[in-house]
């Protein structure tokens, strides 16, 4: 359970969000991260409708909770089965309006990392393209350098400070700040700001406005792309 | 008074245990007490030790045997009766045993005359003059182990001796040395002296082969390197030494 910063593999401290700008039906699958991806089977759907009367309304957000289910044999689950189980959303079909955002998250720390794989290429967290985002709660102090595993040259740093509370009061003070989020806007492979400082336990929102399909990946996981920030 | 005194280890063996040890040795290895020439001991074995006949001119050798009963030791102070000629002093032991001496009078014919061998052409049992007395003794080595005319006597023997330090099987051991021997009631005195001298030599030789490792005295209970003794205390053998 050491901290892994990688938008391609969603854990309980991560969210993937996608804004839908056009009406239509967007099938998708929930697959193990790093797996072979969807095998042509997209059992879940985001239905996007347009309501003319509310064209100027504020963006709404719908959160899909993902859980991992073991196959059941008889009265109980059998982890020895060849089928390791599957990811399922709390709602197989969600209906949103144009301009709304759907956010996927799994609350279970024990759940293995998963990925959203859409039938349409833009939908999915393996390559963040347009009007989407990835959030991550940083749970270990230190300097976290991230890059784009797909090779766009995206590079940034999140510095996480350990609050080191010396008493209950300081501990509470730290906990009261866990609701503070930090936004990093990414456009065309450039993060803004490229370096941010947060406290342990705080969340960073990586919002991708547009781009070639990037990832937010700990540089240590992409050894050949690890370079100091600011290098040419 | 402590047992160890100024030493670290003390061992004492009562005379009954000493006799048990000697009995065990002599029972297991009886050849230590039984010696004889081929007419009496056809071959060396656990039971007896074969030795050469006594060479003598004109004879194939005098056949003999000596056999001792397991000796009984009495450590100072005296518990067993001794002939008046012997007295048991401090540090000494007395030894009593019975010696059986045998010779083979095989060449002695009837009436005490020498008889030629039956295969000898001169042999004529009906001729009263055939025994001229100058015929050589027959070499009866083919009949070893079969003394033809053994003559034996038993003598009660008493001796006085002392312990000596020796080695047995690479270990420190105690041995037994004879100081004097007495045989009761042999006349004339000169014969008694001769026999006593003979038996003194026999006993010394026999006892030279009889020794007891120091470890046996204390059954290996503790490792003892003697610095005092083994010596005869009152009715026991004791030793003291380093651990």
């Amino acid at each position: 359970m050491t901290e892994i910063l990688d938008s391609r593999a969603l854990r309980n401290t991560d969210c993937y969000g996608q804004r839908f700008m056009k009406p239509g039906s967007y099938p998708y699958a929930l697959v193990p991260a790093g797996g072979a991806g969807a095998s042509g089977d997209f059992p879940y759907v985001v239905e996007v409708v347009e309501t003319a009367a509310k064209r100027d309304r504020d963006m709404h957000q719908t959160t899909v909770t993902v859980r991992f289910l073991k196959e059941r044999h008889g009265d109980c689950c059998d982890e020895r089965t060849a089928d390791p189980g599957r990811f399922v959303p709390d709602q197989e079909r969600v209906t949103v309006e144009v301009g709304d955002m759907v956010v996927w998250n799994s609350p279970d720390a024990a759940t293995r990392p998963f990925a959203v794989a859409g039938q349409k290429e833009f939908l999915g967290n393996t390559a963040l393209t347009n009007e989407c985002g990835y959030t991550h709660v940083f749970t270990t102090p230190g300097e976290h350098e991230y890059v784009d595993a797909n090779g766009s040259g995206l590079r940034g740093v999140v510095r996480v400070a350990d609050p080191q509370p010396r008493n209950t009061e300081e501990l509470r003070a730290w906990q009261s700040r866990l609701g503070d989020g930090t936004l990093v806007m990414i456009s065309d492979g450039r993060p803004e700001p490229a370096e941010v400082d947060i406290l342990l336990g705080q969340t960073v929102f990586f919002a991708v406005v547009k781009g070639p399909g990037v990832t937010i990946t700990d540089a240590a996981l992409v050894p050949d792309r690890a370079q100091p920030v600011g290098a040419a | 008074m402590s047992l160890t005194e100024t030493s670290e280890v003390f061992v004492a063996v009562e005379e009954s245990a000493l006799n048990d040890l000697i009995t065990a040795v002599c029972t297991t290895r009886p050849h230590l007490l039984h010696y004889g020439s081929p007419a009496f001991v056809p071959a060396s074995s656990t039971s007896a030790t074969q030795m050469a006949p006594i060479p003598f001119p004109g004879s194939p050798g005098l056949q003999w045997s000596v056999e001792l009963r397991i000796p009984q030791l009495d450590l100072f102070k005296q518990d067993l009766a001794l002939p008046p000629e012997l007295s048991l002093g401090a540090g000494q032991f007395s030894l009593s045993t019975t010696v059986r001496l045998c010779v083979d009078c095989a060449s002695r014919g009837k009436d005490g005359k020498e008889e030629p061998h039956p295969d000898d052409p001169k042999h004529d049992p009906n001729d009263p003059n055939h025994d001229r007395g100058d015929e050589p003794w027959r070499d009866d080595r083919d009949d070893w182990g079969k003394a033809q005319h053994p003559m034996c006597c038993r003598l009660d023997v008493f001796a006085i001796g002392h312990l000596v330090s020796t080695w047995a099987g690479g270990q420190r051991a105690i041995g037994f040395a004879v100081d004097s021997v007495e045989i009761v009631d042999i006349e004339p005195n000169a014969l008694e002296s001769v026999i006593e001298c003979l038996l003194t030599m026999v006993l010394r030789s026999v006892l030279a082969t009889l020794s007891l490792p120091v470890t046996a005295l204390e059954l290996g209970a503790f490792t003892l390197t003697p610095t005092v003794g083994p010596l005869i205390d009152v009715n026991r053998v004791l030793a003291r030494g380093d651990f």
Partner: protein
Amino acid sequence: MSEIIAAIDEGAAQQLFDTEVAALGPQATSGSSSLGPFSVSYAVTGTLSNGTVDLIAPATIEIADLRLDWHVDLSFQLDIGDFIPDIHIPQVCVHIPCVGDVCTPKIDIVWPTVTVPVSFGDFLKTTVDLGVALSLVAGVWKVEGIVQGVPSLQFGASTAALLAAIGLAVAAAVAWVPLIGPFLAVLAGAVVAAIGIAGLTGLLGPIITPFVSGTRFPITEIPALFEVLPASGPFDPAVFVTVDSLGAEVQHNPPEDELVVLADIQP
């Protein structure tokens, strides 16, 4: 009156026990027990070193300052949630220009259960009374000194040091746990407090005491069929005597106390 008497004085007894205690070598055992509120599995080794031998008539051998070097490897499961409350990351919202507010759901960080390994060693000294015991087993007379009763082992400063070691071990074991940093000192302190001196002695006493209590120190062994002379040739078979009876005791023979072995034999 015994036929054979072998005795050693206190100095020799000291040498004897120096040798015999050293010959015992390391002893080891393992199992499971309780460490305060925790169930622990342990593997413990102990090595004795002789102390000062005092012979006390009629049948006691006292060893003062008998030293036991011990080492214990502990392992216990620590459910962090038992000591610090679960932490909740509240809903976090940011405003994205031209888009609006985006929020994450609340996230509950549930503390995991971790395995805490602890490795620690120390030594202690104690005084034990050995009783002189005699037995005839498989044709061998055995004279042994057997620790009487259950000595009360004093762990002293060991407990404080071991508690400190447990605190460090907890910190090392949970270092990987996300978000544990701010709670590390609290957690280690809470675990150590939960165990306490009583918890430690409650563990160490029962698992280490057996290295001392009931320990049998060989004094001497004598075959019931004792070989006086080894076989030395075809006509000289080995000579044996039978050890009929054996005894062992401590005698006070002024000015000394002596360890005495008594035996009777027959050919």
